[in-house]
């Protein structure tokens, strides 16, 4: 009996984490595959990965911030501003790499701003990033006079809309970033530190972890990820809109939290985050494939999410 229970416990333990999410994903895929012939095609699945690539990219950074027990609400605005900067510099200088550099600089600047105010100004990051969300969105609007910045060269659509051997470039970028994120967070001391800071900041300080530096750094990372996300979006739409990525913070947070991270810090994984984003992406795509009418989509989506999480819980209890 003892033996038995411990194997059960082991399974439960794994199910609690990523495998539970994987299970949900598989169940969803099977369900959708039975309901729509278009769903389970390589093309559609690759399409989903491209659709979630921006959320996924930013979620890597958000996970860092959430791990240390902070939050970043300004991700959507930052991505939009980075996109604008990229487009503007690109059309002005004619160089795509200069444009991307500009985006990254914006990302780092915003991240540093958020991080420094949170850490050294000792203001809750919710407030800091709520404020900067508005400020940055405003700057984007003023910069573009509210009008989308279009007329970018077709060649620029490589990152956002092109494929390599049939795989969307933006999916490849996101996967590479995920792998890097996975290594940093789960295989180096930096990940250990981030989790430690979020789990018990006092104990982290006394373990000689430089809390402040890591906190600022995680905001900078999320800023950079926003920059990449902003470039992807701009490239995909060949337009930098000051209102792009509105509400992105919720999509990103949903992926991270659904992936098992805790808003109070210290808990979360890259794989969970990736699965979280994938589940949401699959639900959205699946509902479109099933032509569920718009008003019902929100209901169905909510129900599926609840059912899925409950199912996971139920299994993990056994």
């Amino acid at each position, binding site marked *: 009996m003892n033996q038995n229970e411990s194997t059960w416990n082991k399974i439960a333990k794994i199910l609690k984490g990523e495998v539970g999410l994987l299970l949900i994903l598989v169940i969803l895929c099977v369900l959708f595959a039975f309901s729509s012939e278009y769903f389970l095609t390589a093309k559609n699945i690759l*399409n989903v990965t491209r659709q979630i690539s921006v959320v996924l990219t930013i979620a890597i950074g958000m996970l860092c911030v959430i791990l240390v027990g902070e939050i970043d609400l300004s991700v959507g605005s930052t991505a939009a501003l980075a996109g604008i900067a990229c487009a503007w510099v690109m059309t002005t200088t004619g160089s795509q790499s200069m444009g991307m550099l500009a985006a990254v600089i914006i990302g780092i600047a915003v991240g540093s701003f958020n991080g420094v105010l949170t850490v050294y100004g000792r203001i809750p990051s919710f407030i800091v990033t709520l404020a900067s969300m508005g400020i940055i969105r405003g700057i984007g*609007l003023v910069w573009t006079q509210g009008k989308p910045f*279009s007329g970018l060269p077709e060649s620029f659509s490589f990152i956002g809309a092109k494929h390599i051997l049939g795989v969307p470039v933006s999916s490849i970028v996101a996967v590479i970033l995920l792998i890097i994120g996975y290594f940093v967070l789960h295989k180096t001391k930096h990940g250990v530190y981030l989790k430690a800071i979020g789990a018990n900041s006092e104990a982290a300080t006394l373990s000689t972890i430089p809390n402040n530096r890591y906190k600022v750094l995680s905001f900078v990372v999320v800023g950079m990820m926003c920059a990449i996300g902003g470039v992807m979006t701009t490239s995909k739409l060949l*337009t930098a809109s000051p*209102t792009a990525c509105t*509400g992105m913070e919720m999509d990103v947070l949903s992926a991270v939290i659904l992936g098992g991270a805790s808003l109070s810090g210290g808990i979360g994984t890259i794989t969970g985050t990736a699965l979280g984003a994938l589940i949401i992406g699959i639900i959205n795509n699946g509902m479109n494939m099933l032509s569920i009418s*718009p008003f019902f989509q929100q209901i169905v989506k909510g129900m599926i999410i609840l059912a899925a999480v409950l199912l996971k819980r139920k299994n993990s209890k056994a």
Partner: protein
Amino acid sequence: QSSSAGGESDEVVVGFAVSTLANDFFVTMNDAAIAKAEEMGIKLITLDAQDNAETQATQIEDFITKEVDILLVNPVDSDAVGTAVLAANEAGIPVITVTRPSNLGEVLQHLDIDNKEAGMLDAEQLIKDLGGKGKVAILEGIAGAPSALDRQAGFVDYLKENAPDIEVVTSLTANYSREEGASVTDDILQSNPVLDAIYAHNDGMALGAVRSVIAADRLAEIKIYGIDATADAVEAVKNGEMAATVMQQPDVQIHMALETAMKVLDGESVEAKINIPLKLITKENAE
């Protein structure tokens, strides 16, 4: 080349990518589309982008994956929709745009509503009502939304040219929302003891303003103008709460779009651009 979706061989499937259903105007359009599609025996699938250009691009991709026969797109953003239209072109799916054009790709027909003109019509009526003189406040739509930019430009430019004595005392955003329309109007009323008119970028905000103005007991002095001619707004014009609104006939527009769609699928040629006539609704012609 009538391909099929969902396995039912003969049925024509039309994908309708609407910008947002959180807006009366597009809800009316969608309802009309559903009714008309049923009448024509077409299968209509609507996806709502919730005013998010990226979501819309995604939804159009999903329509392409589903191999719909024809796409009706009501772009969130004329620029941002471009690449999705290109993708549809590439997949050989004909595209028709409604309300806003696509700035890229090949569109068989665009059924346009000129938002600038809507603003102008309101401005014209307002000048008439105020006798060319007075103070007006503006409630803007979502900052940066293309429709808001056009409705603003059409109105303000027309005033500048034709009635220099009408002063725009303030222009604030209420995000196309009725609640914000009311609360921003509260503020406007506080800081403007003298005010003759309010022009709102849509009827939602205008109706919010109506409630606020009524609460402040200043309906007699302040005239309120909106755009969209939603049922509520027409009612308000009729009973004198609003001075005017602009009808853009979303139902007519979508009916025409669906008819065009059938023509395209039958191989007929269609006009590249159709302007849906706008109609100013005032107390005289409200019904």
